[in-house]
């Protein structure tokens, strides 16, 4: 018979439970997890080093690309620090538009999480429903910013696009629809027995452990830690909005689900307040190309928790140093603690419950993009030429294929 006493199973870097590469090594006794270790860094792209070599305007777009889901969070956290160093007084209307996109992004992120959570516990119907409704908020974001992801709304000193009254109407209508659907999901999650059974008592982080391990965002709030940067260290115009911090005392994955669903409802109310109270005025102020020497630390409550950006300027048009702490990095280190003494079956949902974003977490070193190894390096042009030759030698000519497809399209 096989030794079922102690089995080590690798979860990742490639695994169906993970949407991005990360490696967990899980030791099992039967179905129980006795130990878990994390190896991070698979998505290290060198954003911090890259930011030092680019201008502030270029960096806005680079920083947004740290993460696809919370791109506005990273962009805004970065730009806030830059504006603080430059001493820019951002117009109130711009602040409101930033908040609007920020809250829509939170709605998008939480709905996406709900679907992923459903999938991880084998409840695909929830995945299909919540991702269908996620389309509504993605359409709204596209209407506001022109993009479904990577909204690119920010510029130094304000925002790039305005929100007119017709658009405001559309947003309010979309939010009404989403609120109705979210109420239904709250009902499903509080009534469906199998869902409650799979989520309760799983991945427990007690209140004391949450404080000790410094988890952030919904993960902390589900352990009764009422921390929310929007309240504690208000940025933009969050001190003008009426909202409450959603917490839960469940301390488990079920609590994290309830907190996120509750935050969805709060976000809908905040979006309505933002649209209703949107002040008139310009959406941007003129910003200098060169930012004076100085440093600033900016905090932002991203959907997954607190996002921290530190920027140091040296008087040129490029930053001296940019430091990013994505919320997942704070939470990921607590995952091995959460996994211990759980069942293997709970592993996917425990990992998913912090809403991990490994691309966010791994940022810093720039390695030549076309690098296939330390001794074998191609630049972008040579890699492209190599690719074309590779397929041509096997009888596939993409240039010719493209031409013939274009011809056929024209005929239609």
């Amino acid at each position, binding site marked *: 018979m*096989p030794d*079922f006493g102690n089995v080590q*199973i690798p979860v990742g870097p490639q695994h169906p439970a993970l949407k991005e590469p990360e490696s967990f090594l899980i030791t099992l006794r039967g179905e129980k997890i006795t130990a878990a270790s994390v190896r991070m860094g698979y998505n290290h792209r060198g954003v911090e080093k890259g930011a030092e070599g680019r201008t502030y305007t270029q960096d806005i777009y680079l920083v947004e690309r740290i993460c696809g889901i919370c791109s506005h969070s990273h962009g805004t956290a970065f730009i806030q620090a830059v504006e603080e160093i430059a001493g820019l007084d951002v117009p109130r209307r711009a602040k409101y538009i930033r908040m609007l996109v920020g809250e829509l992004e939170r709605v998008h992120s939480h709905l996406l999480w709900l679907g992923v959570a459903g999938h991880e516990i084998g409840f695909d119907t929830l995945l299909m429903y919540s991702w269908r409704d996620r389309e509504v908020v993605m359409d709204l974001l596209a209407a506001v910013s022109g993009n479904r992801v990577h909204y690119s709304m920010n510029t130094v000193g304000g925002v790039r696009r305005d929100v007119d009254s017709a658009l405001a109407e559309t947003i309010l209508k979309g939010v009404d629809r989403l609120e109705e659907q979210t109420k239904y999901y709250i009902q499903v999650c509080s009534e*469906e027995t*199998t869902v409650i059974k*799979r989520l309760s008592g799983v991945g427990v982080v007690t209140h004391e452990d949450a404080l000790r391990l410094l988890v952030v965002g919904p993960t902390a709030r589900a352990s009764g830690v009422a921390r929310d940067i929007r309240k504690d260290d208000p940025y933009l115009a969050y001190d003008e909005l009426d909202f409450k911090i959603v917490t839960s005392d469940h301390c488990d994955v079920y609590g994290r689900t309830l907190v996120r669903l509750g935050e969805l409802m709060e976000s809908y109310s905040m979006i309505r307040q933002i649209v209703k109270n949107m002040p008139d005025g310009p959406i941007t102020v003129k910003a200098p190309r060169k930012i004076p020497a100085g440093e600033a630390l900016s905090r932002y409550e991203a959907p997954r928790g607190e996002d921290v950006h530190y920027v140091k300027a040296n008087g040129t048009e490029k930053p001296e140093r940019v430091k990013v702490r994505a919320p997942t990095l704070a939470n990921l280190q607590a995952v091995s603690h959460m996994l211990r003494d759980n069942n293997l079956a709970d592993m996917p949902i425990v990992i998913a419950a912090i809403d991990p974003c490994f691309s966010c977490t791994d940022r810093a070193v720039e390695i030549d993009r076309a690098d296939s190894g330390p001794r074998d390096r191609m630049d972008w042009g040579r890699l492209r030429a190599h690719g074309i030759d590779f397929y041509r030698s096997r009888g596939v000519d993409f240039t010719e294929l493209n031409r013939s497809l274009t011809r056929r399209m024209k005929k239609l």
Partner: protein
Amino acid sequence: MGTALIQILVFPGLLFLAVAGLAGEFIDRRLYARFQNRMGPPWFQPLADFIKLLSKEELVPDGADRGLFRLMPVFALTAVVTAFFYIPLWGTSALHAFSGDAIVVLYLLTIPTFTYFLGGYTSKSVYALLGSARTLTQLYAYEVPLFLAVLGPCLLAGTWSLSELTLFFQARPWALAANAAGFVIALIALLGKLEKVPFDIPEAETEIVGGAFTEYSGRFLAWFRLSFDIEMITGASLLAAVFLPFGLGLGFAAGFGLYLVKILFLIALIALIRSLVARLRIDQMIGFCWKVLAPVAFLQVIVNLVLKGIFFS
């Protein structure tokens, strides 16, 4: 001899079962998709999947028992097809029948589960190993309630032959009402046998990738998938024969139509259940089977024994 060969290979044998299995998979997937607000696959999707798998390279992992690894899918397929021959479909008699065939069918339906276990066990992969262990653990959970659920009607009819069982209920359709609890239990146990949500624990992809089938590819995976599809038809036919044996004297055309309706109804029920619930954990599944299903099944047996004493002795 010629007729027997046609019966085994064409109708109602392998070819019919393969077509029915693929059609069943399509209906299951389509309904599941519609319940989830999706379009779902076109009608030929299961067939296309099957053909595509056949054309793919099959890999046998290093260190695996090559013979066993390749043989298991064939075993699974043979067992589910054989079981089908002993189940009465649209008439009151099966293709082959003898006085203990109910027990044989139940045991033949256990064989595929063992082939999944052995196939996974010989794959030499941790995911497959865990999947195999779960397959076997799950078998011990749902098998007893399933056997007890089928035992109830058999006791009432006083026979171990499925054909005689259907004859008994054909004469006394009102007696079917006594087996309602058994029907629900058997349906739930069938979900476990077919490894479908909420009991798809042995192949939970987010936990152990593909479970026992992680290392299977190409032809062998195609046979395994086909055997699952046919197992669904065989299982549904068994349930239809034991718990829904009415309208069996209608002749071939009408009887066959009614049989298809029954099978469709059962597949729709399966699709509905799996779109409504989340996957259970193995410990929760065992707890549910032994603490809820098994006692209710026992109760069903006792009730049937009492009824038998009162009405049919």
